[in-house]
């Protein structure tokens, strides 16, 4: 099962991010990964959390606009060329990547990369064929970290 990512629409103004993360904190949500894409007028906060359903419910309740997507996550060796290899595999398989972002895990020496691709199934197969394991999620799309 692919991993679920929550995207939150934020206006580009002071306090917008704070408002959203306060809602998550209030709901007892533990963030595993996050990234922000921003323009002059708005930003998109992308999140992967343990308590996916609770996070969505709390944010919607607070009036936020959300988009939920499946993303692919891989654990890569924390060394030069680690990410390059992953990207090469996806490019060779003809998979388009919209964006990606990295985060560190608690386990020593490993970095994780979230990949927003146009075909998660195909990406997983291509990576597996090249010997790169993707992180899989539990029933509710949580990261097993």
């Amino acid at each position, binding site marked *: 099962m692919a991993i679920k990512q929550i995207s939150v*629409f934020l206006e580009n103004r002071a306090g917008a991010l704070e408002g959203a993360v306060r809602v998550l904190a209030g709901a007892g949500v533990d963030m595993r990964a996050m990234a922000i*894409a921003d323009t002059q*007028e*708005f930003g*998109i906060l*992308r999140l992967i959390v343990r308590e996916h359903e609770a996070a969505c419910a709390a944010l919607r309740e607070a009036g*936020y*606009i959300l*988009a939920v997507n499946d993303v692919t996550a891989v654990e890569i060796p924390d060394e030069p060329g680690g990410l390059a290899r992953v990207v090469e595999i996806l490019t060779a398989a003809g998979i388009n990547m919209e*964006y990606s972002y990295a985060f560190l895990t608690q386990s020593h020496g490993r970095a994780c990369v979230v990949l927003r691709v146009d075909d998660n199934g195909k990406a997983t197969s291509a990576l597996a064929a090249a010997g790169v394991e993707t992180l899989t999620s539990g029933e509710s799309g949580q990261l097993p970290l």
Partner: protein
Amino acid sequence: MESERYYQPQAETMPVEQIRQMQSEKLVRQVRHVWEHVPPYRTKMEAAGVTPEDIRGVEDLHKLPFLTKADLRDNYPDGFLAVPKADCVRIQSTSGTTGRRVVAFYTQEDVNLWEDCCARAIVAAGGTREDVCQVSYGYGLFTGGPGLNGGSHRVGCLTLPMSSGNTERQIQFMLDLGATILCCTPSYAAYLGEALKEKGYKPEDNKLKAGIFGAEPWTEEMRRDIEKSLGIKAYDIYGLTETSGPGVSFECREQHGMHINEDHFLAEIIDPDTGEPLPDGEKGELVFTSLDKQAFPLLRYRTRDICVLDRTPCPCGRTFVRMSKPMGRSDDMLIIRGVNVFPSQIETVLLQEGYAPNYQIEVDRANNTDTLDVYVELSEEQFTDTVKGVTAAEKKLAGAIKTMLGINPVVHLVAPKTIARSEGKAVRVVDKRKLID
């Protein structure tokens, strides 16, 4: 000072009592014409219990029912046409879009009358057959270009039918052909002034002496700016497609209100809420009755423009009543870049495009051009996780609004519940243009 010139001195300086007498006679005749040839208005008169016999002069005008844009819209395209189509030679149409468009018909006599009114405005601005008149209003369904074009011909000016846009060519012809009178919207006049300056031209480098500017509200401050940047005297002109087009009223050298062509148009000021006529000098909604128009003769047409009538004698010698610049509207219509815009039109587009009708329209003026920003609350249906997805949604919505209004907006998708609300009611329009000093 040079003595005042008039295009039709007999009419323009007619003693007030004679004007009133003439209006009474024309009104009686016009009411009869409408009663016989315009069934929707006859129905209104019958509902109000009025017959042509009840109208013996202007003192009976208040007995007649009002006409609104909705009446004209409901009878689109030709329900108010009062002569056989074969007798018509022209149509013009309002700038409004689907559902709001009004088609006005003209016989040759109607066109002549309209062009005479525009000619009066040109002569009042100092125009003679020696002049070169650059008409930079849009040509086509819009009345601006055709009206001033016709007026310019009548005065005998050399007419440059430039239409709007293509600033490079406007400037080239203005300078190379020595234009002396410029007719366009005030915002375009200001824009031309800026463009000339940017090219290094000083006001004395052009031969312009006067400008006749209308079709949108403008301020005294804007007038002074235009006069300075182009080195001209700037005159206001007013009109609406429903009554003919520009030239219903025009400014003289006094620049103190616009003389209404009272031999053709009967003006009233009413209380927009009660419909009761108000005494001269009081602020209210301007209502027009066309006294001479044959093809499209409107009786007591509510313009929705709020203004004041001034009957004090004008030093220019014209005896026609003067109206102030419109000070506002009694409906929610906005005029943006000369185009009539109703917030409801934007709402219609939002619903068609799958948005909730939570929006705010912000109109401003930058570099003397109106700007239109539309803020729309985003909903999950339109939101994707990518920046390009949100930007594409903004562009798509802007395109749909452009199609509806004919003007390009900038669309901003915003977070829910961020559109300002006052007393629970959303503020739909923020007009930052300071149009009235």
